[in-house]
């Protein structure tokens, strides 16, 4: 990126060029396999034998490597794709500056003047918030239970290779389907209602947690499992005496992260799939009543919840990790 500038360093500017006693000692200790180093050379000259230089005799600070090449290629590809997309994007037929001013004005109204107008009461919005929280809690807890069992079978060190791979493939399929599509598909499959929302959110939660759990199970010291196996412990004894105690804190941390994600998802699902909760009220306020003040109020409610969850998460991490 700024590699050309590095060429400005002259050889004598570099700290290694000084003949400090430490540098000389380091050179003296170089193993003989490093190359021919006749005793007549000074420490300075010996060092410069091993340094890669460019044509003008300056030290190369940046060396070509596969990693750097891939890095540069990916950056160039991403930049090209971005420029192409921004140039070919359909910007609609709205006058652009006015639209920007309008959006900024709406955003400002939303964060500075949030209040409940005539469409909802405070009690309704609060109930909606708790419905979304309940949805998140239920999916996280059921999801964690299911994911724990599946995670055990998906961990390569606790189950057979075939079973582990099979579960991992199914789970990466489940993870690749966006949450909202799971919920919409389940809405027609089992009927509109909380059951569809819970099932839809559950699929993504389980897939996410199985990956997280099985990866932390696989990090367990194999010696512990081998020792328990050698002393005749059954599979369940291994799980409850070594796997569970050792990974409990990282599992707790992952589960709590998933709870935060599930709350965000519950809001989104409420808006799009009509699963109720504060998300649905947000959708009504924005799409039907066109009332920015109410949107702002509901956004503040969600912000408070995410802030509280973040504080709880840091406290949990401080106490138990």
């Amino acid at each position: 990126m700024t590699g050309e500038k590095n060429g400005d360093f002259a050889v004598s500017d570099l700290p290694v060029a000084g003949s400090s006693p430490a540098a000389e000692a380091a050179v003296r200790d170089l193993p003989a396999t490093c190359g021919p180093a006749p005793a007549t050379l000074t420490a300075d000259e010996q060092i410069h034998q091993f340094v890669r230089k460019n044509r003008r005799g300056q030290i190369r600070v940046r060396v070509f490597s596969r990693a750097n090449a891939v890095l540069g290629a990916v950056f160039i590809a991403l930049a090209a794709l971005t420029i192409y997309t921004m140039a070919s994007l359909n910007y609609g037929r709205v006058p652009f500056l006015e639209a920007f001013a309008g959006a900024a004005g709406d955003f400002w109204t939303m964060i500075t003047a949030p209040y409940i107008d005539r469409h909802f009461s405070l009690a309704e919005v609060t109930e909606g918030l708790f419905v979304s929280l309940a949805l998140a809690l239920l999916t996280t807890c059921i999801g964690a239970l299911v994911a724990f069992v599946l995670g055990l079978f998906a961990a390569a060190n606790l189950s057979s290779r075939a079973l582990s791979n099979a579960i991992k493939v199914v789970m990466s399929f489940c993870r690749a389907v966006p949450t909202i599509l799971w919920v919409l598909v389940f809405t027609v499959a089992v009927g509109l209602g909380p059951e569809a929302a819970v099932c839809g959110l559950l699929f993504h939660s389980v897939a996410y947690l199985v990956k997280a759990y099985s990866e932390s199970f696989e990090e367990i010291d194999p010696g512990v499992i081998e020792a328990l196996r050698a002393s005749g412990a059954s599979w369940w004894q291994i799980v409850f005496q070594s796997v569970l105690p050792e990974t409990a804190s990282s599992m707790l941390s992952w589960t709590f992260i998933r709870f935060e994600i599930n709350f965000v998802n519950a809001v989104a699902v409420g808006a799009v799939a009509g699963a109720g909760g504060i998300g649905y009220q947000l959708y009504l306020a924005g799409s039907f009543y066109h009332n920015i003040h109410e949107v702002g109020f509901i956004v503040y409610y969600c912000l408070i919840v995410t802030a509280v969850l973040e504080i709880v998460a840091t406290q949990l991490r401080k106490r138990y990790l």
Partner: protein
Amino acid sequence: MPESPESTATVRPAGVTGASGGSGASGIAGNAASAAAPAAQATAQAKAFFRRRGLIILAVAAGLIVLNGVSGGLLSFDFLQTIIDVPSGLIWMFTNFLPSAASLARLPVILTQLGATVLVSIAASCTAAVLALVFAVLGSRSVGLKGPMQFIVRAIASLFRNIPTVAWALILLFSFKQSEFTGYFALFLTSFGYLTRCFLESIDEVSRGAVEALRAVGASYGQVVAQAVIPLCSTVVLSWVLYMVETNVRDATLIGILTGTGIGFVFDMYYKSFRYDEAGLVVLAIVVVVIALELTSNFIRRAIL
């Protein structure tokens, strides 16, 4: 979940008094100089430990079950009915959402829209990353500006990250109407908040020593940023951008449904007109693209890290 620290706190004092009682007993036993005392004391301590651990686990489990019961009640969620419904629902899903031969005729339309969505996700991630990098450099602890800048950057990042995507989509829809740009901008704003936060942490983690070294030899602020911070962070930044592209493709479906753009709109259209086989084809196409993106970014990550 927030209940669990409280429930452990109520159990803990009992455990503490049990332990102190045990040590008191050991003092008396020590005076009696009995040979069996250490063993008995150890068993007593072990028993107390396991009893306390059992109580804690029981209390946490009970608390969670009660909370789940309350949540289920609030949602009027029928647990047993769900268990009965899910298998038949899954079977219904696989029979109805399976793409039929007729739906394959729609494949070109779906693929064009999906391609456009992927491009928009990439553009949103990259432009957001550029802005987020500037903000993160200005607000980081190691190379940031002094004064209130650190707090301001963190507040902005946290605000943009935590405002629900739905709210962004609705606000932008008011002004920008139904166009590809609306979807792009909604993705851009959420990615910006998320990436700023990630970059802030990465910059402080990766470049502290190098920044100090360059400062010590008298480099200017611009030199420190250009020679230490950006080269050292480039792999981490790229890794986060790739992750963001994957997330954005998935989020673009939600935003697409709300703003009527991209693949989300296509899915919504088929879904609402009960053409489930075509909707299923859209889901399959999304799955293939997301998995391909995941594999590509894993390959790139292995090559650069």
